[in-house]
């Protein structure tokens, strides 16, 4: 299996965020990897290495899902392809 040619990874099919494996630029067309399948995607923000971005429109109050698990809740509407981090997500437990 050659999995070398991808830019970001989705850890579980139910996730609504992906994680970059390299620094990626706004408006770039990237390759997403999910369960050894690759697909195309367009980013709408510059995203640093290891940071997250939304895979679809996430509404304020929606849960953020990574690893197939809830990691927090959206504090604002997040458009598809945008950076997902502490400016638009908060912990449900912290």
């Amino acid at each position: 299996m050659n999995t070398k040619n991808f830019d970001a990874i989705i850890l579980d099919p139910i996730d609504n965020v992906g994680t970059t494996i390299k620094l990626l630029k706004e408006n770039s067309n990237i390759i997403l990897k999910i369960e050894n399948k690759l697909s195309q995607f367009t980013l709408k923000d510059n995203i640093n290495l290891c940071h997250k971005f939304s895979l679809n429109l996430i509404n304020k109050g929606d849960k953020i899902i990574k690893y197939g698990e809830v990691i927090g809740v959206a504090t604002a509407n997040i458009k598809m392809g945008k950076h997902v981090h502490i400016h638009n997500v908060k912990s449900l437990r912290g």
Partner: protein
Amino acid sequence: MKKYFYGYKRKNGTIGIRNKLLIISITGLTGPTARKISNLLQGSLFVDNPYGGGIIGEDKIRQDNAIIGFAKNPNIGAILIITADPPKGHYIKSALDNSKKPVELLTLDECNHDAIKLLDLGLRVGAKLTKHISNYRREKVPFSELTIGLECGRSDPSSGLVANPLMGLIADRLIDLGGSAIIGETIEWLGAEHLLQKRAQSNEVKTKISNAVDFQRNLAKSKGIDLLGNNPGHQNIQAGLTTIEEKSIGNVAKSGSKKIENVIDWGNKPKKKGMFLMHAPAYAPESLSGFSSASCQMILFSTGVGNSFNNHISPTIKYSANPYACSQLNEQLDFKCSDVFVGEKLIEKSLGEFWELIVKICSGSLTWGEILNDSSEVFSRIDRSL
């Protein structure tokens, strides 16, 4: 896959991966002199308990247990206890009887409170102990006597994606071979309790897991602390971790998939074999000393962006899956798995290479942390002194 390594069989049946003289100052007054003695003796390890008579109650029990735990660690071949409190010295010495290791006790009192005399005497006694343990030899030993501590620090999402799952595979393999592993950092179970509880060996252990997390969470709340900025810390946030839940889910991947036998307190040795949780602080120095006091002979330490701190008694294998850290930290990272993170290598192949490294380190190859001496032991405090 190698199922054996070369270690030091101790008289009480435990197995060390190192053979060190421990010079341990158990009172604050003797610390500076004991440090000089250790500096002059090749290969000795120095541990400094900077506290003394004012330590009381639970705090005292915790500290005495840690002193005894460090000294009983199988990596220690002999112990030189140095103290300004003779009764405490005798208490610690007799608590080490069942380790069957050579133990010597020196008090400042017997040197008429003269630190220079203590230095002279300590150097002579320490030299003899060093000579004695140099006669010990490594033998072929099984992994069943190995206990490893599982740590992460300065984590980023590459830790949760690759480095920690890799650690989990190592932990599973070790437990299949009859060995043991411990994961600490209670606050980093917050948001991932359900994943740990699914593996608890009894309902009692399940309850202990949620009680431990509630305790740490309430501690933060009672002090008015918002976990964001504390845990995940600023470096974690900069590196891409957003919430404690996200960090915790990545963190508990370190523990693999085996049954969780019990929740133990900071520094306490597990009473049987298998996978254990240690209810303990998350910051690396205190967390790692919990492991070495609990008799872990080795520590696996994943980092995202880099973390130079190592445990003193238990060789600490540093590794990362972050491509930038792997390209920069050549004299810190003992193992690199960024090739798995970027998809150039399968995790199974990395697992085989990592296991080979573990066999080598257990058999005497040095970690960067040992070579550079970037290591220390600390005592955990939970109360005020008199």
